[in-house]
C-alpha cells in the first residue's frame, strides 16, 4: 500500500481544540452565534476534512503524519467519518435542546460555553484515539476522551448527575489502568526481540507471534478488561447506565454512539490481532460478550426510564461488536465493524429522538408516564420506531445485515452456543424496543391531557433534521448495503494486514 505524507490527521485533532479555545474566548452570554455558531462551523469544516481524508485513504493511500506518530488506514478513516459526522449532528440537535434547558433554568449561558467547548475537545480526543499508531498513546487518548466527557455527564450538577460523573471517571479510570498494565506487559515481553517497534500498532502482528505464551495471555486479558470497561460490557458496566441516562440527551447520543465504540476500536487494534495465534482468546471474548449481551438486554427489559433502557441496550449491542471482533476471522471482524457502524447510527438516532420527546414534554422520560405521542409528534415517532425496528434486527434495516453477518461468523467458528444466545438476544431486543416505542407513541397516555397530563408538540425543524439524517442513513444502508461494503471491506483488510505483515 502506498504511503503518503499528510497533515490532515493532525489537523483533525488540533482544529476542534482550536475551536474550543475560540468558544471560550469569544463565546458571549447573549449571542448564540458565538457559541453554537462557532461550534457548528468548526465541526462542519472538520467533517469536510474527515471526508477528504477518507477519500484519499479509500482510494488506496496510507496517510502518515511525520513526527507525530499518526497513521490513518481504512479503519481509522471509517471511524473518523463516524466520529465527526455524529458529533456534527449532535451539535445541531443541541442548539434547541440546550436552549430549552437554559429557559428552564437547568443551566446558564456561561456553562453552555463550557458545554460546546467540551464537545469539541472530546471530538479532538476521539480523532486522536483512532489515528495514533502508538500503543501507550492509544491509552492516553482514550483516557483524554473519558475526561473530556466527565464534566458533560455531570453537567447539570444535580445529585444524580454528580453521582454518575463520579462513578464514570473512577470506574473507567481503574479499568483503563488495567489496559495500560496489559500494554506494558506486552511491551516488556516483546521489547528484547523487536526494540521500540513493539509499541507500534502496525507491528502488533509480530508481537503476537513472538512473545511467550503466558505473557501474551496475561497482557491480552488485562487489555480486554480495560477496553471492556470503556465499552461498558457486563460485569464492567456499572458506570454506563448512570452516565448515559444522567447526561444531557445529546451527550447521551455521543456517549452511546461514539465513546463506547472507542473500546471496540482499541480491541480491534490489539486483541483481535492476537486472536488467530492464541485460540483461547476468541472463546474468552465469546463467553464475556454473550453473558454481557444477555444480561444487558434483560436489564433493559425491566427499566422504566427510557434513557436507562436505551443505555442497557447499548451494553447488549456493544457485546455483539466485541464478539465479532474477538473471533479474529475476516467474517467476524467484518460483522463486528458493520455492527459498530450500524449501532452508532441507530443508537444516536434513538437517543436524539428521546431527547426530542423530553424537549416536547418538559423532561418526562418515564415510559409509564408517556403515551400517545404519535399524533402530536409524527416525525419523532417515525424516527424512534424506525430505530427500534432497526436495532431489533428487522429486515430490510441495517442492523439485520450486520447481525446476520455475525451469526454466520459464529457458525463458521463453530461457537453454536454463542450463536443461540446471540439470536435470543436479538429477539429480546426487538421485543424490548418495540414495546417501549409502542408505549411511548401509540398507547393511550397515562393521564389524559385535560387532567393535567402531557401536552406535546412536534419539535422544531432544527431538532429533527439530525434525526431525519440518521434515520435516512439507517434505511439507506439497509436497502443498499453495497454502498458501505467497500469501506467495511478495506477496514477489515486493514485490521488483518497487521497480522499478515
Amino acid at each position, binding site marked *: 500500500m502506498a504511503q503518503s505524507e499528510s497533515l490532515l490527521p493532525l489537523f483533525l485533532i488540533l482544529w476542534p481544540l482550536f475551536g474550543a479555545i475560540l468558544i471560550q474566548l469569544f463565546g458571549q452570554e447573549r449571542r448564540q452565534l458565538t457559541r453554537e455558531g462557532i461550534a457548528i462551523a468548526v465541526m462542519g469544516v472538520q467533517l469536510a476534512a474527515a471526508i477528504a481524508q477518507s477519500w484519499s485513504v479509500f482510494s488506496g493511500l496510507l496517510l502518515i503524519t511525520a513526527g507525530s506518530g499518526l497513521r490513518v488506514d481504512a479503519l481509522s478513516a471509517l471511524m473518523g467519518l463516524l466520529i465527526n459526522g455524529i458529533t456534527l449532528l449532535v451539535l445541531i440537535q443541541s442548539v434547541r435542546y440546550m436552549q430549552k434547558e437554559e429557559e428552564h433554568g437547568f443551566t446558564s449561558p456561561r456553562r453552555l460555553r463550557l458545554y460546546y467547548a467540551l464537545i469539541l475537545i472530546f471530538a479532538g480526543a476521539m480523532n486522536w484515539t483512532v489515528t495514533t499508531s502508538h500503543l501507550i498513546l492509544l491509552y*492516553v487518548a482514550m*483516557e483524554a476522551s473519558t475526561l473530556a466527557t466527565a464534566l458533560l455527564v455531570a453537567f447539570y450538577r444535580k445529585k444524580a448527575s*454528580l453521582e454518575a460523573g463520579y*462513578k464514570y471517571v473512577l470506574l473507567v479510570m481503574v479499568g483503563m489502568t488495567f489496559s*495500560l*498494565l496489559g500494554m*506494558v506487559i506486552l511491551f516488556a515481553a516483546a521489547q*528484547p526481540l523487536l526494540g521500540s517497534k513493539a509499541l507500534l500498532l502496525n507491528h502488533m502482528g509480530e508481537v503476537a507471534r513472538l512473545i511467550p505464551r503466558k505473557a501474551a495471555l496475561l497482557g491480552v486479558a488485562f487489555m480486554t478488561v480495560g477496553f471492556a470497561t470503556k465499552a461498558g460490557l457486563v460485569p464492567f458496566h456499572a458506570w454506563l447506565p448512570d452516565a448515559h441516562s444522567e447526561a444531557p440527551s445529546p451527550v447521551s447520543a455521543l456517549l452511546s454512539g461514539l465513546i463506547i465504540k472507542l473500546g471496540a476500536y482499541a480491541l480491534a487494534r490489539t486483541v483481535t490481532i492476537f486472536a488467530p495465534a492464541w485460540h483461547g482468546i476468541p472463546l474468552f471474548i465469546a463467553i464475556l460478550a454473550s453473558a454481557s449481551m444477555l444480561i444487558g438486554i434483560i436489564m433493559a427489559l425491566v427499566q422504566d426510564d427510557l434513557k436507562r433502557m436505551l443505555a442497557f441496550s447499548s451494553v447488549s449491542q456493544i457485546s455483539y461488536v466485541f464478539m465479532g471482533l474477538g473471533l479474529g476471522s475476516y467474517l467476524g471482524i467484518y460483522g463486528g465493524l458493520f455492527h459498530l457502524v450500524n449501532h452508532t447510527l441507530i443508537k444516536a438516532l434513538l437517543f436524539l429522538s428521546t431527547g426530542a420527546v423530553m424537549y416536547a414534554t418538559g423532561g418526562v422520560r418515564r415510559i409509564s408516564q408517556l403515551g400517545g405521542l404519535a399524533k402530536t409528534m409524527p416525525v419523532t415517532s417515525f424516527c424512534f420506531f424506525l430505530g427500534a425496528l432497526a436495532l431489533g434486527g428487522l429486515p430490510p434495516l441495517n442492523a439485520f445485515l450486520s447481525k446476520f453477518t455475525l451469526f454466520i461468523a459464529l457458525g463458521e467458528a463453530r461457537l453454536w452456543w454463542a450463536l443461540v444466545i446471540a439470536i435470543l438476544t436479538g429477539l429480546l431486543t426487538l421485543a424490548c424496543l418495540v414495546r417501549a416505542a409502542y408505549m411511548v407513541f401509540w398507547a393511550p397516555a397515562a393521564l389524559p391531557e385535560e387532567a393535567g397530563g402531557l401536552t406535546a408538540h412536534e419539535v422544531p425543524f432544527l431538532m429533527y433534521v439530525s434525526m431525519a439524517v440518521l434515520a435516512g442513513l439507517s434505511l439507506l444502508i439497509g436497502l443498499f448495503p453495497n454502498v458501505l461494503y467497500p469501506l467495511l471491506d478495506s477496514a477489515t483488510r486493514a485490521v488483518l494486514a497487521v497480522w499478515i505483515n
Partner: protein
Amino acid sequence: MIAGQTLVTLTMAILMASVAAVEIRKLRIAAWAYLTQSLLICLLLITYAWLTANGSLYLWAATCLLTKGIIIPWLLLRYIKRVPQIEHKPLLGFALSVILLGLMMVALYRIFYRTIFIMAPVPALLETQVRSLLAGACVVFCLGLWTLLSRRDVIKTVIGLGLMENAVHLILLALAPQLKETTMIGILTNVVAAIFILLYLSADIYRLFGSTDSARLSELKR
C-alpha cells in the same frame, strides 16, 4: 551492591508509606503520607537512573516530582479542607484493618516475587533488586484496588486511585524504562486531570449530599 540495597530499602519504604496512606483516618495526614510516597518514588527513580546510567529517567523523576509530589498533593489538601477532616468510618476497626492488610501484603509480595516471570519474561529481572521493586509495585497496585473496594469515603477512594497510579509508575519503570518522556507526560497529565475532576465532583457531592459516604450515592440504584 550498596545501590542495589538502596533500591530494595526504598521499595520497602514505599510499601510502608502506602499502608499509612490507606490506614490513617485523618484525611490530611493520609494526603501527607501520599506525598511522602510520591517523594520516595522520585528518589527511587533517581537511584535507578544512576544505577542503569539511563539519563532520560532523570526527566521522569522531574515530571513525577511536579505532578505527584506537588500538584496532586496540593489539590488533595485544598479539597480536603472543604469536607470533614476524618474519613467516613470504614467497615473494619483500625487495629484489625492494619493487621489484615499486613498479612495480605506479605502474602501478595511472596506470590508476586515468585511468579513475576509470567508478567515479565525479561532477562533484566534476574537481578533481585528489580525483581523486588516489581513485586513491591504490584503489591501497591493491589493495595490501591483494595482501598477502592473497601472504603466508602469519596476522598479516600481518590487517594486509593492515586496509589494505583503510583504503582503503575513503578511498574513502567521496571518493565519499560525505554519509554519516551512525552508518553510519560501524557500518562501523568491524564492522572492529574482525573484526580482533579474527581475531587471537584467530591466537593460538589459533599455540598449536595451533606456527606462524603459513597454508599449514600444511591440516587441511581433502582
